[in-house]
């Protein structure tokens, strides 16, 4: 009897010890997210925010019983000073790393605050080369200007156009991208007309008149943001320049633009990782789309996809660093630098400066209310309509 009781006590003690050890290993990780949820960049900030929320839900399912994750989000109101304050607050609240940020001008100071605190900051919202040129060991991004330029140049090359007008916003990221497109196309013998505008421009007719009467180009390449695209396309619909295609970059080939401006978007090209309606085949992508639909009752778009990918890579690295016992010792950045993953936006690895050098975008075309991927050929789910313009 005494022996049985001793055995029972030993078993209970072992069970308690094991339970306690498993409880000690299971951790809840707080991630910080600083995003423009109001102000000029609210729409894109909201898109990334949704993707981050999906990543948290999916990670909590994937690591259920082992680890859990939650995110604390602060609206930076599209203001650099408030973004810095948000980063400091999130770090003060105990965030192990930061995911988010939109606009190179806001990400710059915000990521600098994170760097000062030695906390990892990962984003897909700022593509300017200056961000990675700083060489901050805590800064990571999954996309870059080169990847957008590759897609735009590749599409224009496939079209075989010989004269292109690049209409671009004079911000850092947009100017960089426009100049990359210009130099690559010029090197291939394409005549490129450059037309800069500033953020205050609301009437694009004078600029489009130049494209029509001076450049007489075959394609318009727009490098700006949503409001700029709408202004340019409205002016183009009035003036009807004799071009064969209108091509843009981010925030253009999206479901939202298709729904809100159907009369302007038809046949317009823009960077897009996803067709609309979304067609997924891989299990992770299917789960992502289903979760997105469940949380937000809509189809995911590429902004959400970027937010998801950056956050998921961050979470996986947090788990690896935790298991290696280096998380509290600043090992997260090293773990992220060791990342080599196939993701919803393709392969992701980070170089010494935190840039994903594999990044290359895809091009979609608005076709009767849908976004059809038309470039590159291996990612295409439809043929491009060329020549084709919205008017």
């Amino acid at each position: 009897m005494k022996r049985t009781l001793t055995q029972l006590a030993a078993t209970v003690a072992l069970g308690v010890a094991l339970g306690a050890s498993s409880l000690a290993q299971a951790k809840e990780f707080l991630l910080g997210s600083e995003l423009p949820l109001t102000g000029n960049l609210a729409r894109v900030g909201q898109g990334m925010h949704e993707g981050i929320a999906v990543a948290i839900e999916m990670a909590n399912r994937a690591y259920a019983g082992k680890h859990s994750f939650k995110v604390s989000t602060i609206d930076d109101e599209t203001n650099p000073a408030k973004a810095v304050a948000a980063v400091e607050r999130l770090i003060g609240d105990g965030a192990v790393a930061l995911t988010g940020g939109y606009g190179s001008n806001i990400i710059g100071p915000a990521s600098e605050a994170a760097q000062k605190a030695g906390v990892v900051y990962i984003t897909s919202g700022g593509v300017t080369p200056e961000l990675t040129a700083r060489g901050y060991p805590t800064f990571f991004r999954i996309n870059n200007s080169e990847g957008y330029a590759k897609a735009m140049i590749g599409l224009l090359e496939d079209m075989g156009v010989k004269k292109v007008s690049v209409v671009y916003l004079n911000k850092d990221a947009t100017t960089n991208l426009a100049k990359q497109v210009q130099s690559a196309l010029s090197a291939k013998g394409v005549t490129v007309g450059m037309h800069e505008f500033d953020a205050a421009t609301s009437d694009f007719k004078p600029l489009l008149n130049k494209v029509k009467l001076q450049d007489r180009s075959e394609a318009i390449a727009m490098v700006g943001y949503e409001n700029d695209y709408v202004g340019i396309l409205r002016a183009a619909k009035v003036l009807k320049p004799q071009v064969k295609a209108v091509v843009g970059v981010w925030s253009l080939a999206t479901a939202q633009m298709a729904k809100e401006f159907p009369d302007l978007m038809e046949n317009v090209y823009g960077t897009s990782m996803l067709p609309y309606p979304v067609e997924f085949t891989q299990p992770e992508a299917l789960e992502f789309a289903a979760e997105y639909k469940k949380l937000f009752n809509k189809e995911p778009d590429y902004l959400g996809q970027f937010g998801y990918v950056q956050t998921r890579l961050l979470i996986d690295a947090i788990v690896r660093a935790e298991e290696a016992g280096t998380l509290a010792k600043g090992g997260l950045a090293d773990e992220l630098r060791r990342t080599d993953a196939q993701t919803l936006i393709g392969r992701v690895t980070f170089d010494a400066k935190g840039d994903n050098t594999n990044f290359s975008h895809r091009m979609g075309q608005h076709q009767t209310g849908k976004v059809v991927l038309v470039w590159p050929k291996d990612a295409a789910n439809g043929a491009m309509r060329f020549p084709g313009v919205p008017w």
Partner: protein
Amino acid sequence: MKAVVLIAVLALAYVGVPLVFGGNAYILGLIVAALTIAGVSVAWALLGNLGGMVSFGHAAFFGVGSYVSAVLAMKLGVPVFAAMVLGGVGAAVASVATMPALRLKGPYFALAMLAYAHIFQILATEMTPVTGGAGGLLSIPRFPTVMGVEFGEKTGGYLIVLTIVVLAALAYDAIRRSAWGLALKAMHDTEQATRVVGVPSTHLKAAMLVLSAFITGVVGAFNAHFISFLQPDYAFASTWTVLPIAAAIFGGYRTVWGPVVGSLAIYLLDQLVFKELMPHGHQLVLGALLCVMILFSPGGLMPLLVRRRRRKKEGVQAHAHA
């Protein structure tokens, strides 16, 4: 403000605040941001109260000061503190270009200043080789460490901006109490009459404009080195005009310390209370609060507090006499 009270408040500000909030970068960062607005607010109120000129274009001086300082420090290697002062000088020089607007009165002056702010913003955008164009400047040198004090850190930044604001307010107070101040106050009511008695009103107004621009430029320069980033949209944003005006009116722009109290009150209330309660659209509450303040105490918060204190004191005295 009585000297004893002022010394006590300043001691609390210089010693108490860093001791209490030194470990909380977020709160200290918000206080620095509020004091940045306070600096512009004092400069604006100085011009409005003593010069009788309501400007809608102080963002012009803020932006010029920011760029002059950032460019001097980044491209010419000028020490940051010297660059900051030169930023103020740059804004003062830029204010000379706005002097034709002194011929205008009331809303015409205000709108002319708004136009100047826009002109300076365009210049900053177009001077790409110097200013970095619309892309702006990243990694602007931060404040250095002097005698062990890390001015590049939050607490150091707080001490710098606090000193700027205190010096600006003391300068405002000194001018207000001087013969110049008397002339300016008289001019504020009847400019024609003061001219008749020999007051050089245009010169005095010009001097106030230069001083106001200098203070605003120094504050702008501080902000550039503190945030370490600059672009025309940000440096010349209307926020640098609108928020200081709102703060000055909220605190009481006819008083010296009203703009400072107003800036701290509205910025910290907005960020620490309203934003917590309403993560989106919290500016609505701030707007409503401003409306209430203007309706119930058009003179602002400081006169309201002084009135209450005086009434309380009178009540105590009456009670003692009874």
